[in-house]
């Protein structure tokens, strides 16, 4: 018997279609504000390239070219860190246990980057990315059957529909409020090790000098929580 794969379109039900719609509106809003879209897919590089070429060189004449780049070097986290700026976008096409993508996703809030995660199999934990666009199938062949291609095609198509609704692309009041800014503090990534108890830290709003005397030993690329100008906790990798 020849192995048959489930048709990609059959996965797109009410829930996933709503997820795709919400993700597309966020993509359009960020592009409207000047974002660049970075794409990583350490297990399946061609998917990263396909997403990038889709946005840069649209298949439909007259659609605007949007900045998108596939990051396919051996260390995509290092590539995304230096490439991305606050307000940018990051799409990962990867399984939930891909280490580089797990790491990039937990750091993205400190970079000020909005994240989308496309994949199949066991899901990433809720909140691991801003938008988790997932195929709930344990078939390991899903990435080679056109299903991911369908998902990023749909994202591209829906994003361009959003551009026809300029009123909905304007910055919203609530978008200025960061959900990580509660009592817990803001996520930051150390850029320069402390000198006289002050480390340069990158957070969603930009770079700032932060008092690290509570934590003491702080290294470059450590993730920390910043509260009232001071580093109060270091975040360790969970896995």
């Amino acid at each position, binding site marked *: 018997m020849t192995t048959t794969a489930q048709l990609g379109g059959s996965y*797109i039900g009410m829930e996933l279609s709503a997820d795709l719609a919400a993700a597309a509106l966020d993509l359009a809003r960020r592009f409207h504000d000047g974002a660049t879209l970075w794409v990583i897919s350490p297990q399946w590089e061609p998917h990263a390239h396909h997403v990038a070429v889709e946005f840069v060189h649209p298949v439909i004449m007259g659609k605007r070219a949007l900045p998108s780049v596939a990051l396919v070097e051996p260390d995509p986290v290092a590539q995304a860190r230096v490439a991305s700026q606050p307000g940018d976008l990051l799409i990962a096409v990867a399984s939930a246990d891909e280490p580089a993508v797990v790491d990039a996703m937990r750091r993205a809030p400190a970079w000020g980057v909005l994240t989308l995660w496309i994949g199949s199999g066991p899901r990433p934990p809720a909140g691991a990315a801003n938008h988790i666009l997932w195929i709930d199938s344990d078939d390991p062949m899903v990435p080679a059957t056109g299903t991911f291609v369908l998902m990023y095609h749909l994202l591209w198509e829906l994003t361009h529909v959003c551009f026809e609704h300029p*009123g909905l692309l304007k910055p919203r009041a609530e978008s200025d409020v960061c959900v990580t800014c509660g009592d817990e503090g803001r996520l930051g990534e150390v850029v320069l090790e402390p000198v006289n108890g002050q480390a340069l830290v990158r957070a969603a709003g930009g770079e700032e000098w932060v008092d690290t005397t509570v934590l003491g030993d702080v290294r470059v690329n450590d993730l920390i929580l910043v509260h009232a100008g001071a580093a109060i906790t270091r975040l360790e990798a969970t896995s």
Partner: protein
Amino acid sequence: MTTRHEPESTGFLYPFIESEETDATSLLDDLAASARGKAGESARLQQESLDEYAPGLTAAGTQMAERFLRGGRLYTLGNGGSSTDAATLATLFSRPARGRPVAAWSLAADEAVVTALGNDVGFDLIFKRQIIAHARDRDVAIALSTSGNSEDLMTAITEAKQRGLLTVGFSGHDGGRMAVADDLDFCFTVHSQSIHRIQESHAMLGYRLWSVTQEHMARPMSEARP
């Protein structure tokens, strides 16, 4: 930041795409419905293509398996998005999540080779010159083009056929030049006007081709031989 979102003077002609629109609920509903509609079309086209080409895919996959068993290797070719689909297909053959890996690579993958050929001999020859360099008579070439008209693919396919390769084309629309090319042993045209939907079907047809090949290579030799 800037005021570039100001309504244009013709805005009154299009009250529903006016920049004063503030509630995203109905847009999100429309987008989700659109996604489901396109997904349904994608699935329908994939199934129709699989059904239409079932005998051809079985024959092509069987011949590919016989070539792999003789040490043949697979080259995949495409431009733009189809080059990435060609790379995914090559990876499916060379590094499958299950089954038996065989030698396969995309001829667009090496930027040094592609830019050297593009710069020195012209873009139309980026694939043909690689076929001349790499190909042996037991190999296979699969070309993916949503129009079926790409010159760089057609010249490479002609060269591949002359060198005894098994040649397979994935096309779209009306099939273009691929549909009438004598140099293609098999041509699978996905009948759609949408480049996106064609690419999604190409992926599914490629997956079926891989499945047939795997099935055939797993058989005992006495069964595999005609």
